[in-house]
């Protein structure tokens, strides 16, 4: 599992000199891509289950994340995500970045223990691929 790829993706999404809310925004965007990739394969419920579990695991290091699970209604992933976003945005920038990174790392590792690292990599590789600004510019210009 390439932890650096996750960090790069989050950093790129947050833009230059991000504040906590930019990080929260990037986290949610990345998460949506992950969920979009995974849901058809492992099912929406499967994705939700692993996400809840990784939130729980991550909150051992970042106790303020644990509250995110309690704020929303049970089983309502939209409310859960909104709560997560608010919690991240309310932190110091560095803490938000670390927690966001840890959450996605925990998620991918948990998924890998269930369906294997190769399949996890295979399914999520497109998400971690950093956007290609150079190529985009070529197309648009």
């Amino acid at each position: 599992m390439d932890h650096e790829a996750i960090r790069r993706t989050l950093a790129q999404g947050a833009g230059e000199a991000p504040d906590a809310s930019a990080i929260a925004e990037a986290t949610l965007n990345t998460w949506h891509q992950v969920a979009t990739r995974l849901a058809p394969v492992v099912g929406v419920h499967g994705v939700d289950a692993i996400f809840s579990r990784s939130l729980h695991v991550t909150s051992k290091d970042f106790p303020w994340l644990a509250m995110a699970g309690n704020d929303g209604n049970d089983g309502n992933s939209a409310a859960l995500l909104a709560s997560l976003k608010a919690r991240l945005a309310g932190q110091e920038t560095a803490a938000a970045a670390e927690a966001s990174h840890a959450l996605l790392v925990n998620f991918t590792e948990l998924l890998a223990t269930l369906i294997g690292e190769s399949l996890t990599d295979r399914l999520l590789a497109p998400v971690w691929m950093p956007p290609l600004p150079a190529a985009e510019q070529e197309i648009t210009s």
Partner: protein
Amino acid sequence: MSNKVTIRRLATGVPGLDVILGGGLPEFSFNLIIGPPGSGKTTLAHQIMFALATRERPALYFTVLGEPPLKMLRYQQQFSFFDLDQINESIRFVDLSGDVSTGNFDQVLARITQAVADFSPALVFVDSFCSVMLEAQRQLEGAISLQQFVQQLGILLTGWQATTFLVGEYSLESETHPVFTVADGMLLLDQSVHRNSMVRKIQILKMRGQATSPGIHTFRISSAGIVVFPAAVVRDDTGTAVTADRAPRNEARLAMGVSRLDDMLGGGLPSGYSLLVAGPSGSGKTILATAFLAEGVRRGEPGVIVAFEQTPSQSRTRTIDEMVRTGQIGLINTRVLDLSIDEIVQHLIDLIHQMKATRVVIDSLSGFELAVAPTFREDFRESLFRMVAVLAGLGVTVLLTSELEDRYIDLRFSPYGSAFLTDAIIVQRYIEVESRLKRVMAVVKVRGSAHSDELRQFEITDKGIVIGDPVLGFEGILGGQPRRTPASGTVD
């Protein structure tokens, strides 16, 4: 003039399955894979999918409410056919559980249609379909019914030129179910537990437009996936049935490797014959079988032995061990207690082809019967009949041993009534002469050939079986207590 449609048949990639399907799976067919939980439906579907899917022929796997996809992926990955490189390339998974739980089939159908339109799959799997049916009970008012749903799905997928598989737990009691009528093919998987053995079975209940192998076939699931063992089919020799694929019996005779025995058989055992050697424990059946194989090796006729001894290293003679070790004969040694006869026959046929064997020994039928799963024992005689017929079809010469309790009040050749199955019979017995236990042997029958009718004494020495002279001057030998005949001199 003949512009009939030609249906292409797809090779399923499951060993043995194409054979019982009658030559593969018809392209664009609508198939059901049904059976109770744990019978191997999802595994079969995956194995077929990974074998058939290519970039040009992509597969879509819809997971419905059955097995959670997370678990399915976790466990199916354990099989060697699960090729990660195909995921999201030639194989795509689509989870439909959310849509199905609403009970709105229009929506489910729309999702499937959308996915099919996007991906243009040549293969579609829906797993499992029974959950769709259960959900149907609480479908919405005004929505299409399940029957309409299935029919529309069938038409949609055939229209999209997709070969389709619905996986589900149906009970055959609900045979009137619309799906059964719509389906072109039905594969029924089952597992039967008898005492402490478990046997997996597969049946092709229906396959439109082609001749399937009727009846129940067995299969096994290993780390490589499913292997089907087609039930040995006895070729029909009546009418115009070709005798060409039945190896012609030539006039040649095989030396038995025991001097004087060839003479008793009328010049050796006719090639392609099956010979039953029956006798009590310790009478020398295995030694005779060993001599038969060793003689073959000496003459450049490779052999195969199927041994069912409980402790092979002890009871198999050193000669067999040596011949196996040097690759001169093939050995199938099994002590598994849940075999199907078809599985043994399949292994045997493979080994015969591989060794180019012409001599086959099955030692012994008694051990064979023990090794066969209890559920098959009732049909043991029939299966034996099929096996002998299949081996005869291959043109090999077969020697079967059969343990027979010495009974001095009747003359029997096999405990299975299987004596009629074989072309030749040799019987061995103990007799008591002057307070010694002696062995006698006789050729009971050699179909279509003259043979000796003498009871010969024989001994087992270091060099094997040594056949002596005819037992003359006695009568009542088969009664176990011979008396000297009055004419032969001393009368007491």
